[in-house]
C-alpha cells in the first residue's frame, strides 16, 4: 500500500472518529436536556402538590393545637376570675349581714343611697332593697332622710318601695315617675368593678 493511500485511509478514519464523537456527544447532550426538563417538571408538580397539602396540614395540626391550648388558657383565666368573683360575693354577703366587725354595713347602705340620690339629682326618691335592709331602712328612714338632706344641702324625701328585691345588699333608687333609676346594689357594683378591673386583673394575675 502506497503512502498516499495510507494517508487517505487515516484521513477517512480521523473524519469518521470526529463525526462519531459529535453524534454521540449531541445525543448525550439531548438526553441530559430531556432528563433535566423532566426533573424540572416533576419538581414543579411535587412543589405545588406538597406545598398546598402542607399548608392545609399546618393549619389543621398547628392551628388546632394553638386554638385548643388558647381555649384552655382562657378557661383557666376565667376560672380564676370566677373564683375571685365568688370569694368577693361571699365577703359581701358576710359584710351585709354584719359579719365583719371592721365594717359598718348600715353606714355603707346610707352612703349607697346618698350616692344614688346625688346622681339622680331628685328631691323625692323611692328605694328598693332586700327584706333585711328594708327592715333596717323602715326603722331608720327618717333619720337617713335628715342626714342626707343635711349632707346634700337640700330637702330629700325618701320612700320605701313595697317591692322586695333578691340581692345581697345595696339599693335600687328611682324617682316617682321612674324615669331615672340608679342601681346601687352590691351585685351591680361588683359587676361594674369587675368589668372595670378585668383587664388590669388579667395583667396582674397572668403575667
Amino acid at each position, binding site marked *: 500500500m502506497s503512502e498516499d493511500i495510507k494517508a487517505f485511509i487515516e484521513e*477517512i478514519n480521523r473524519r*469518521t472518529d470526529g463525526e462519531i464523537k459529535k*453524534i454521540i456527544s449531541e445525543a448525550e447532550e439531548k438526553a441530559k436536556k430531556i432528563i433535566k426538563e423532566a426533573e424540572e*417538571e416533576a419538581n414543579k408538580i411535587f412543589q405545588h402538590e406538597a406545598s398546598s397539602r402542607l399548608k392545609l396540614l399546618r393549619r389543621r395540626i398547628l392551628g388546632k393545637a394553638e386554638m385548643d*391550648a388558647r381555649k384552655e388558657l382562657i378557661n383557666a383565666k376565667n376560672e380564676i376570675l370566677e373564683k375571685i368573683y365568688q*370569694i368577693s360575693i361571699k365577703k359581701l354577703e358576710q359584710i351585709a349581714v354584719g359579719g365583719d366587725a371592721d365594717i359598718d354595713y348600715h353606714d355603707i347602705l346610707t352612703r349607697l343611697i346618698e350616692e344614688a340620690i346625688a346622681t339622680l339629682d331628685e328631691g323625692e326618691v323611692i328605694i328598693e332593697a332586700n327584706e333585711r335592709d328594708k327592715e333596717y331602712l323602715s326603722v331608720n328612714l327618717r333619720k337617713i332622710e335628715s342626714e342626707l338632706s343635711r349632707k346634700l344641702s337640700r330637702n330629700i324625701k325618701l320612700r320605701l318601695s313595697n317591692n322586695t328585691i333578691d340581692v345581697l345588699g345595696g339599693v335600687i333608687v328611682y324617682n316617682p315617675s321612674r324615669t331615672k333609676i340608679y342601681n346601687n346594689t352590691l351585685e351591680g357594683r361588683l359587676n361594674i368593678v369587675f368589668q372595670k378591673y378585668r383587664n388590669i386583673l388579667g395583667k396582674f394575675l397572668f403575667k
Partner: protein
Amino acid sequence: MIYTSLSVLVEAELNAMKRIEEAKNKAKMIIKEAEEKAKEIKDINKIMQRVQKYVDEEEKRLRREAEKIYESYLREIEEIKNIPLSKLNEISDMIVKEVLGIE
C-alpha cells in the same frame, strides 16, 4: 495496482459509513433511554408517592411541634391554676373595698 488502491479506499469509506450508522443508532438509543427515564420521572403516580412520603414526614414533625406548643400553654395554665388562694383573697379584698367605696 490502481484497482487495488481504489478498493482499499472504498472499503475504508464503507467501513466509515458503517461506523457512523452504528453511532447514529447508539445516539437514537441514548435518546430513547432518556425519554423513557423522563417518562418515569414525570410519572404522576410516582410523584404523588413522593409527595405522600414527604407529607407523612412533615406531619410527624408538625405533630411534634404541636405538642410543644400545647406543652408551652400547659405550663402557663398550670401556673394560673396554682395561683395561691392568699393572692386571690388579697385581690378580692381590694375589689370588695372598691365595691363598698371604702378607702
